[in-house]
C-alpha cells in the first residue's frame, strides 16, 4: 500500500516525524480559529446590517488577534469556593478532546496524521470527551447556573449521539469500512459518487438518495448539538443560565473552552465532509485531484459547513432542553433507523 503520509516519506519513521505529525494539525488549527472568529464577527455583522470590527487592520481583519491578546492579558480568576483541581483541569480536558480528534482526520490522500482502520469510531468516541469536561467544569465551579448547564450538556449528549451513531453506522455499512481513507477512496470519481448521492453505483441507486440525504441532514443537526451551537446551545443558553458551564471561567481558561468550541466546529464539519461529501476528493473526478488540491477541497468543503453553522447561529432561536430531547429521540432516531435499513439493504443487494 502506498504511503499515506508525506511526513514519513520525507523524514522516515523517527521521533522528529512523530512530533511534526502531532504539531501539524495545530499549525492548521491556529490560523483556522482566527479565520473562524473573524468569520463569526463579520458574517454576523453582514447578517445584521452592521459593519463589524473595522478598526484593527484593513476592514478589521486583525480583530481576532486583538481578541486573543486581550484574553491572554486577562487575570486568571479562580473563585474561592471552586474545586480547584477539577476547575483548572476542565478547559484543558475539553481542548484535549477536541484536538485528539485531529489525529485521524485525513486532510489529503498524502496526509493523515495516524491512519487507523477504525478512524470513524475513534472520532465518535473522542468527541464525547468534551462532555466530560463540561460536566467537570460545571460541577467544579460551585455555581448553580454552571451546574444546570453541565446537567443539560450531559442530557443533550446522550440524546444527540444516538441518531448520529446510526447515521455513521449507515455510512460505514455503505462504504464497508470504518477507515476514513477507504471511505473517501470509495467516493472518488466526481461528485455523483459521493455518499450523499448514495455512493458509487449504477443508476439504480437513485432510490437510495432520499435516505442518504436524510442521514446527511440528521448528522448535520446532530453535529450542531455536539458543538453547542444555536439552535442547540442549551448548555450555555445565555438568556437563561447566564453562560452555563463556563459562567465562572475567565481569561485563558475561558479561551480554551472557546478554542475547543471552534475546533469542534471544524471536526464535525470535517466528518460530514468525509462521510457524505467525498472528503478530499475533487468534485470533478480526477481533475484537480493532486495531494495539495485535495487538501484545498477538503478544507473548503469543511469551511462551508463552518459557515453554515455560523449562519444558523445568527438566524435561529434556541430550543428548550426537553424539545431537543423530543426532536432527537422521537423524530430523528426513528427516521435514522429507517434510513439505516434502506441504506443497509442497498449495500446488501449491491
Amino acid at each position, binding site marked *: 500500500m502506498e504511503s499515506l503520509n508525506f511526513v514519513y516519506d520525507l523524514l522516515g519513521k523517527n521521533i522528529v516525524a512523530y512530533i511534526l505529525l502531532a504539531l501539524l494539525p495545530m499549525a492548521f488549527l491556529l490560523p483556522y480559529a482566527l479565520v473562524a472568529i473573524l468569520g463569526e464577527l463579520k458574517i*454576523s455583522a453582514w*447578517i*445584521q*446590517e*452592521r459593519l463589524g470590527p473595522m478598526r484593527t487592520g484593513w476592514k478589521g481583519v486583525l480583530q481576532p488577534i486583538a481578541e486573543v491578546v486581550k484574553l491572554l492579558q486577562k487575570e486568571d480568576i479562580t473563585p474561592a*469556593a*471552586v*474545586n480547584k483541581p477539577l476547575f483548572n483541569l476542565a478547559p484543558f480536558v475539553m481542548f484535549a478532546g477536541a484536538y485528539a480528534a485531529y489525529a485521524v482526520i485525513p486532510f489529503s490522500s498524502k496526509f493523515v496524521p495516524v491512519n487507523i482502520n477504525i478512524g470513524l469510531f475513534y472520532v465518535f468516541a473522542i468527541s464525547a470527551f468534551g462532555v466530560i469536561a463540561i460536566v467537570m467544569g460545571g460541577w467544579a465551579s*460551585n455555581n*448553580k*447556573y454552571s451546574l*444546570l448547564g453541565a446537567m*443539560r450538556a450531559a442530557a443533550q449528549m446522550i440524546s444527540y449521539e444516538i441518531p448520529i451513531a446510526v447515521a455513521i453506522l449507515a455510512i460505514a455499512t455503505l462504504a464497508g469500512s470504518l477507515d476514513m481513507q477507504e471511505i473517501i477512496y470509495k467516493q472518488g470519481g466526481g461528485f455523483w459518487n459521493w455518499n450523499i448521492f448514495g455512493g458509487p453505483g449504477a443508476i439504480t441507486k437513485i432510490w437510495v438518495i432520499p435516505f442518504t440525504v436524510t442521514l446527511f441532514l440528521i448528522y448535520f443537526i446532530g453535529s450542531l448539538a455536539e458543538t453547542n451551537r*444555536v*439552535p442547540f*446551545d442549551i448548555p450555555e*443558553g*445565555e*438568556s*437563561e*443560565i*447566564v453562560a452555563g458551564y463556563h459562567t465562572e471561567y475567565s481569561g485563558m481558561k475561558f479561551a480554551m473552552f472557546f478554542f475547543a468550541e471552534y475546533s469542534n466546529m471544524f471536526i464535525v464539519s470535517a466528518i460530514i465532509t468525509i462521510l457524505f461529501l467525498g472528503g478530499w476528493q475533487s468534485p470533478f473526478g480526477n481533475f484537480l485531484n493532486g495531494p495539495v488540491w485535495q487538501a484545498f477541497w477538503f478544507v473548503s468543503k469543511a469551511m462551508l459547513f463552518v459557515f453554515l453553522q455560523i449562519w444558523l447561529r*445568527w*438566524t*435561529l*432561536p*434556541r*430550543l*428548550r*432542553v*426537553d*424539545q431537543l430531547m423530543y426532536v432527537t429521540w422521537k423524530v430523528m432516531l426513528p427516521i435514522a433507523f429507517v434510513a439505516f435499513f434502506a441504506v443497509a439493504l442497498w449495500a446488501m443487494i449491491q
Partner: protein
Amino acid sequence: MSETKTFEIDFGKVYSERMRLNVGPQHPSTHGVLRLEVELEGEVVTEIVPHIGYLHRCFEKHAENVTYPQVIPYIDRMDYISSMNNEFPYVLGMEKLLGIEVPEKVQYIRVICAELNRIANHQIAIATFGLDSGAFTPFLYYFRDREMIITLFEKLSGGRLLYNYFWIGGLMHDVHPTFAEDCLEIVKQVRKTNDEALDLLMYNKIFVERTANIGILPADVAINYGCSGPVLRGSGVPYDLRKVEPYSIYDKFDFDVVVGKGEMGTLGDCWDRNIVRVREIYESCKIIEQAIEQMPKEPCDVRQAVPKRIKPPVGEFYCRAENPKGELGFYIISDGSPKPTRVRARATSFVNLSVLPEISKGYMIADLIMILGSLDIVLGEIDR
C-alpha cells in the same frame, strides 16, 4: 464544597432536593434589576418570588417637593423607553383640572409622538423577547429602526430617551418643517422590518414551539390581577383605553384593537402576548398616517395655552391613558399650592409583573425567562 453532607442511599427510591436559584438582579434577561427567587425541581419551577426595589428613586416623594410642571421630567424616568406616553396622562389630567383648551395642532403632535413612542417601545419588547429565546438578529433589526424614531425625537425635544416634550397646556417646541416626511419614512421602514420579523421570528417553528402554550394567562385571571395593555389583550380581552374612553383626539382615527386569538396554541400564551405587540405596531402606523394627513399644516404657537403659573384648585383626581405597556394612571392630590400634595402612579409594569408567580409555576426555567419577557416590564416603572 465547604459544606459536607452525608446521604443515606435507599436503593429503589430516588431523593431529589429542590434548589433555590437566585435569578438577578444582575442577569442577562431580567430586563433590568429585577431579582427572582426561584425554587427549582430539576429544571421545573415550583415557586417564584419576585423581589423589587433595586431601582427605587423616590419618584413619588420627589414629586411632592417640586411644582406641577417640574414633575414631568421625573415621569419621563419612570418607564424610560416610552417617555412620551408617560407624559400623556399627566398633562391631560392637569389640563382637565385647570380647564385648559390646547390648540388642535398640539393634540395631533402629541398623538403622533405617543404612537411613535409606542412603536419604539413595542420594538424593544419584541426584540428583547426574541433575544430571550436566543434569536439575536431581529434584535438589531428592530434597534436599527428604533434609532430613526429616537433621532426624530431628538430633533423635537433635544433628548433621545427622556424628552420633557409635553407641557401642561402645550408642547416644548413646534415640530420642525420636515416632520411629516420624517414620520412617513419611519412608518414605511417600520412596516418593512415588521414584515421581515414576522417571517424570521414570529412564525419560525422553533420560536412558536418555545412560546406557544407557555405561560397561559386566562382572561379572568388577567382581569382579577388588574393586568392591562398587551398582557390583557393577549388573553383576548379587547380593552384599550384609546377605544374605551377616547382621550385627546383618539376618536378621530380609524384603528383596531388587536387581541390574541390563540392561533398557535392556547389563548393567552406568550406567543399571543407577543403577536399583539407586533400587530399593534401596524395599528400605530395607521394612526400616524391618518394624523399626519389631518394635522393642520400652518405653524402655530404651541405654547400659547401654557399657563404662566399653575395653581390648581383643591381636590384630588385620577387621570389615565394607554401606555404601550397598559393603563398608566396618576392619582394627584392638590391642596391649592403650586406643588402637589401627593402624586401616586399606577405603574403598569408593576401590576403586570404581579401576575408572574401565578402563571409561571410548573414550567421550566427557560420558559420562565420567556414568560417574563412576554410581560414586557420596565424596572424603572416598577420601582419608581
